[in-house]
């Protein structure tokens, strides 16, 4: 693929590998003239910027040169200084060698030429920098003249030894890439001479004796010190010879592919298996010199390319200078050759300026370029992957904090250097040690239930008073009589108060004015209802005042009947007119009298009077009094000064009813929170702790606390978990499912734990009951990530909408039987039993989680594709539901969402499956009355390729309202029990097709290799389900049966894995037979035999539950 182009007839030189950006220097080529016959010479520097997709090169510097160039090279000399970009050396006619400072050219500074010499006698065609010492330059010219220059002292050259005889031109000089004092020169005669500069003499001459070699190019092997290549320009021998100096009598091998003489070679420094060559056959080839094969070819061009050079910095790139006056830059990685030739042809024409160069009076027609290739030519990339794109090492993270590394010379953590080219290491990364430590502490506390000690510890280690306070609150929540203890925490203890009151009373408060005026003692307080402890004293002890007041008024009874207020009151009382009397008292602001009268006047009057009183009295205390007397707790919460939130909370703790309490606490918290003040928000947290509102606590917390760091998150979760536990203790049940904010944090926390490898712990924190998508997703992931460790647990529902990928295939049963050999089954066996589990579960979850976008248009799924396991066949007939791609499932209950459709009856047309089918390799069916099972491919069927015959479950055309005995077991066992807590709200009462005793078990069975007994045994497990069918109302047994469902899964698991010994299988088979015959007594006997004759560990998972089931069935006689 062509990347860049520039129209120059020039010698070229790339900037060294360490130079960034990449430059290309061009110097006008000697011995080539264009139509202008100009003999000017220019040295130019272009930036090769691959970020720019255009073909143009940006000129960065230009300089008129005194000589045209035979050879140009760019070296690192002087690169020590920051601004230097090295030097360019040009070899010109008449033995001129010129040294340019690149920096000066680029910066357009004066005196760019920093050295020039004319020591050579003829044109200098050969130049090379020593790869080890950037100041050492070798040059070669006519008459076998080779000089070694020290650029620090450019005037006096050295020679590598005596001139070789006979004198001839030097076409190439080249330093060895491995040994710094070895230099070689090549001559047109076909000879190459290797010089040792330490000995100052030629040490070996390489020459093939055909005399037809005509050396145009030479290159040392980039890695093997003793190998070099020579290219021959002779058309009769257009080859590249590979020589090894250890066997220098004849070439090691010869690369033959060019049809005419080779003009130049360049060996890739980044990959020694790539050698470029250009030849007079107009081709540019790239060879793998080891294999002697051409790995890349640039299509035929119109002109010879006299020089190819790999780019030292960008290994995919090389440049080619052609005699038609272009320098092109190509990538060997293939791609489009684009419309390049056209632009060049145009430019060739226009170089004649469309004038009339020959004076014929006719303008020349545009130049035709007959060789022009197709406008877009695809060039294949290197046949052999180059070394530089082969990734030798790698690393990736995986779920659970696993780190996968490969290609390392040592295993992570190992000291010994060792190569593991074919090994992949999986390591566990733990970074948050303190976090894990604290998390473990929390977990231990939660498991042991010893949270009080945990809180105590937290209180003692708390650094901030607020933190300490918070833990105090949390701790109190866990204790008995939490309300009074909370009051104490707020600074109100009943005992203390009693003491205060006692002392207060003995100090003569009764002498003071009656209650309304009592608040004068609080004159210093702010305006709003600001309750402090002395107010509380007054409030709580108000009745005591009255007790004390009454006796004081006893004296001789004197009834005034005057016309003043006293008299009128007396008169009203005499007449029993309490209302008027009270009114009079109120008017006279004799409130105490009014209240006393009102008490006598009945409840209504009292209430009215209180109301009036509070309306009239606008003191600070009165609001409190009014609220307490009238039980307007909400008023307190809504109006209290936020500074006295503690008192408000104390009131709630003292008075409010349990059912209002949490709500009021939350309101108070919300008020505090809404202030936006950090301190008040912290207080709000205390309110939420008091109310036990976890969600609000979290919401409030995250507003004011950073929770992104692990430890900060740990801080929050500790509190949440302790509070949650206290609520559980209080209510005796699990707390409500977490709201979105808490769910997010919990998920974050569990993710963090998971990322440190604590999968089981992470799982524990995620509430099963939660419907939060985040939690469900993480639960699903954690469950499966733990592999077999959670084998006895029910997998959580798959929280995504399944999408089926690929064309649905229709495989014939026979083909299927052949293509699913036992090997395949057993190979994948360990994963299989669990795989379908979560595959199945998504179906019902889809409708309940509309937030998961279903991006795929529903597509009609042929009935053939339906899974063999359950009742999905009618899917084919239910358009809208096919949006959910059902997959094979051993747990058909999860697909209950599809069941209503399943009853459409249409699918019957698909069913012919249950006759003894050819795919069933098991022996004669033990129960002739039952159909044989679906084919052996069943357990593996995810979707798509079930054998068409036995795949389809036969729904009878008449849906039965009664739960059938033989419907799929897990369904049956769940549905009659309601199982409302299950995450699938399925229409249980829809009923299942009455399959009769012959209905197939839809459980997936182990592959063909499973022996008959378990098959039969499984068949009849449908009967226990029938038992359960009759037990709907029996609440007591219900629980047992729920448990049974789980345990039976264990059995199915083992059956699928074929993990059971033949003896047990026989036993199960026998039990099944007994159950089928309703002979539970016999069944129990067999059961006992099996248990006694088997190893406990093998049967402990399921045998007990079989016994329970049979016992229940026997009792109920179903």
């Amino acid at each position: 693929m062509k990347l860049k182009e520039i129209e120059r007839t020039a010698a070229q030189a790339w900037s060294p590998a360490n130079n960034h950006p990449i430059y290309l220097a061009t110097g006008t080529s000697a011995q080539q003239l264009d139509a202008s016959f100009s003999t000017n010479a220019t040295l130019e520097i272009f930036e090769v910027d691959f970020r720019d997709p255009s073909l143009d090169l940006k000129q960065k510097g230009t300089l008129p040169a005194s000589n045209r160039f035979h050879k140009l090279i760019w070296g690192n000399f002087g690169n020590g200084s920051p601004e230097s970009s090295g030097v360019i050396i040009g070899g010109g006619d008449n033995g001129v060698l010129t040294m340019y400072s690149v920096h000066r050219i680029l910066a357009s500074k004066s005196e760019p030429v920093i050295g020039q010499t004319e020591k050579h006698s003829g044109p200098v065609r050969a130049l090379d920098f020593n790869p080890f010492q950037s100041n050492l330059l070798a040059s070669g010219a006519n008459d076998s003249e080779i000089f070694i220059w020290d650029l620090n002292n450019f005037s006096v050259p050295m020679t590598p030894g005596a001139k070789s005889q006979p004198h001839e031109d030097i076409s190439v000089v080249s330093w060895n890439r491995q040994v710094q004092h070895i230099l070689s020169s090549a001559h047109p005669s076909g000879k190459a001479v290797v010089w040792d500069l330490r000995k100052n003499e030629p040490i070996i001459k390489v020459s093939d004796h055909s005399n037809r070699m005509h050396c145009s190019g030479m290159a040392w092997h980039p890695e093997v010190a003793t190998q070099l290549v020579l290219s021959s320009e002779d058309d009769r021998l257009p080859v590249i010879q590979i020589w090894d100096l250890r066997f220098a009598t004849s070439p090691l091998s010869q690369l033959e592919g060019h049809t005419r003489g080779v003009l130049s070679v360049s060996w890739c420094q980044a990959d020694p298996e790539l050698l470029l060559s250009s030849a007079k056959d107009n081709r540019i080839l790239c060879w793998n010199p080891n294999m002697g094969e051409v790995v890349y070819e640039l299509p035929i061009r119109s002109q010879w390319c006299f020089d190819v050079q790999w780019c030292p910095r960008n290994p995919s790139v090389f440049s080619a200078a052609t005699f038609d006056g272009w320098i092109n830059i190509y990538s060997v990685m293939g791609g489009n050759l684009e419309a390049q030739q056209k632009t060049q042809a145009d430019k060739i024409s226009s170089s004649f300026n469309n004038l009339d160069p020959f004076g014929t009076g006719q303008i020349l027609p545009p130049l035709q370029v007959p060789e022009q290739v197709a406008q877009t030519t695809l060039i294949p990339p290197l046949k052999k992957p180059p070394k530089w794109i082969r990734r030798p090492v790698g690393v990736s993270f995986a779920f659970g904090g696993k780190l996968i590394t490969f290609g390392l010379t040592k295993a992570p953590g190992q000291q010994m250097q060792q190569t593991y080219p074919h090994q992949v290491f999986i390591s566990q990364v733990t970074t948050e040690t303190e976090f894990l430590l604290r998390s473990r502490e929390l977990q231990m506390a939660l498991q042991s239930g010893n949270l009080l000690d945990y809180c105590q510890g937290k209180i003692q280690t708390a650094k901030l008073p607020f933190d300490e306070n918070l833990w105090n609150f949390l701790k109190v929540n866990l204790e008995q009589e939490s309300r009074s203890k909370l009051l104490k925490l707020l600074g109100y203890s009943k005992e203390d108060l009693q003491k205060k009151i006692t002392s207060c009373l003995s100090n003569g408060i009764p002498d003071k004015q009656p209650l309304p005026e009592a608040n004068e003692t609080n004159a210093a307080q702010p305006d709003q209802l600001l309750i402090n402890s002395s107010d509380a004293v007054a409030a709580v002890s108000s009745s005591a005042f009255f007790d004390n007041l009454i006796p004081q008024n006893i004296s001789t009874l004197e009834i005034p009947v005057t016309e003043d207020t006293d008299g009128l009151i007396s008169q009203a009382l005499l007449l029993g007119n309490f209302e008027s009397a009270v009114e009079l008292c109120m008017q006279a602001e004799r409130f105490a009298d009014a209240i006393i009268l009102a008490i006598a006047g009945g409840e209504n009057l009292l209430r009215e009077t209180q109301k009036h009183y509070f309306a009239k009295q606008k003191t600070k205390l009165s609001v409190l009094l009014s609220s307490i007397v009238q039980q307007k707790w909400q008023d307190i919460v809504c109006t209290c000064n936020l500074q006295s939130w503690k008192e408000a909370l104390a009131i709630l703790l003292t008075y409010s009813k349990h059912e209002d309490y949490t709500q009021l606490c939350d309101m108070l918290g919300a008020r505090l929170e809404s202030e936006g003040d950090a301190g008040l928000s912290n207080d709000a947290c205390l309110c939420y702790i008091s109310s036990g509102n976890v969600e609000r606590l979290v919401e409030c917390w995250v507003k004011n606390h950073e929770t992104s760091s692990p430890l900060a998150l740990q801080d929050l979760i500790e509190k949440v978990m302790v509070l949650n536990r206290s609520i559980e203790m209080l209510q005796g049940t699990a707390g409500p499912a977490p709201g979105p904010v808490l769910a997010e944090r919990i998920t974050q926390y569990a993710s963090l734990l998971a990322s440190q490898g604590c999968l089981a712990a992470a799982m524990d924190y995620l509430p099963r009951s939660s419907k939060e998508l985040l939690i469900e997703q993480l639960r699903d992931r954690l469950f499966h990530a733990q592999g077999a460790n959670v084998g006895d647990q029910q997998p959580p529902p798959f929280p995504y909408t399944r999408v089926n990928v690929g064309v649905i295939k229709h495989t014939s049963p026979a083909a299927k039987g052949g293509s699913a050999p036992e090997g395949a089954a057993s190979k994948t066996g360990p994963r299989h039993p669990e795989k379908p589990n979560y595959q199945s579960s998504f179906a019902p979850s889809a409708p309940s989680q509309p937030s998961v976008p279903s991006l795929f248009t529903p597509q009609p799924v042929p009935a053939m594709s339906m899974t063999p396991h359950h009742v999905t066949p009618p899917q084919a007939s239910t358009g809208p539901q096919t949006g959910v791609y059902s997959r094979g499932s051993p747990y058909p209950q999860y697909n209950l969402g599809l069941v209503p459709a399943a009853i459409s009856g249409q699918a019957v047309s698909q069913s012919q499956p249950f006759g003894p089918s050819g795919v069933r390799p098991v022996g004669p069916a033990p129960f002739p009355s039952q159909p044989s099972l679906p084919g052996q491919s069943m357990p593996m069927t995810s979707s798509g390729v079930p054998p068409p015959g036995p795949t389809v479950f036969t729904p009878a055309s008449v849906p039965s309202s009664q739960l059938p005995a033989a419907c799929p077991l897990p369904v049956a066992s769940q549905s009659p029990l309601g199982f409302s807590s299950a995450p699938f709200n399925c229409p249980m009462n829809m009923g299942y097709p009455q399959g009769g005793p012959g209905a197939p078990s839809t459980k997936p069975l182990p592959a063909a290799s499973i022996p008959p007994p378990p098959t039969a045994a499984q068949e009849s497990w449908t009967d226990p389900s029938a038992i359960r069918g009759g037990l709907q109302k029996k609440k007591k047994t219900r629980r047992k049966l729920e448990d049974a469902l789980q345990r039976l899964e264990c059995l199915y698991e083992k059956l699928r894995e074929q993990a059971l010994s033949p003896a047990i299988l026989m036993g199960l088979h026998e039990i099944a037979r007994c159950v089928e015959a309703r002979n539970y007594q016999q069944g129990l006997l067999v059961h006992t035999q099996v248990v006694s004759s088997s190893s406990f560990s093998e049967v402990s998972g399921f045998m007990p539950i079989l016994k329970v089931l049979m016992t229940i069935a026997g009792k109920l006689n179903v």
Partner: protein
Amino acid sequence: MIHDAQMDYYGTRLATCSSDRSVKIFDVRNGGQILIADLRGHEGPVWQVAWAHPMYGNILASCSYDRKVIVWKEENGTWEKTYEYTGHDSSVNSVCWAPHDYGLILACGSSDGAISLLSYTGDGQWEVKKISNAHTIGCNAVSWAPAVVPGSLIEQPSGQKPNYIKRFASGGCDNLVKIWKEEDGQWKEEQKLEAHSDWVRDVAWAPSIGLPTSTIASCSQDGRVFIWTCDDASGNSWSPKLLHKFNDVVWHVSWSITANILAVSGGDNKVTATSDHYTRFAMFLEPDEN
């Protein structure tokens, strides 16, 4: 030589690919290692593998020097080719599945300079969009941005399809990291991130952890590892931060699931894990042996 090893979503299966043209799948649950599949179909070294989200089943994509991308699928315990893409003219160096919320979309970066986006449209059909000339000389790596609905972290009203902005990052032989954005079904170059002085070998967009900041790690032939961050929602201003300069090529960068650790593997045969919380980049540690 193994070129890539990736665990599936659950971390229970490991897929590896190698110079020997094979893709192998191992069951690695509970510390075991059982070879469960040896997938043959590539005709050159296989560079990368990528697991699709499990909601699409058991799907694995692989890319190779043979210019092909193969999507493998497990059915009934048997892994088979479900799709083969041959639209690239050169080595396909990187494959990466889009966040599952977008559907099943695979981005492939190739040495022909193009990036292909293969979207599954149902019924075994795939739609191909191609960005030609994404990176001159070649694209070495692609990595999707996490699915985040712009502007809010609040869930969309149920039933409504969230208005995702699809983005991914790519790194190439033009020393650039580029960010691509889909607009009206067309992929457009949104940003060009320049800091590396040699080929970008790998890019990794950090998983979202709920913060508005986007983060990309890139590593290069020049030994440098950069962390690019963008705080504004429009995604316009990215700023680089040099994480470390190694002495040799850095081949891979990989974020941990919680985006707090970046693992870096370089040609000097060291794996370095770097912990950061977007603020501190200083901690280097060797992974624990297990």
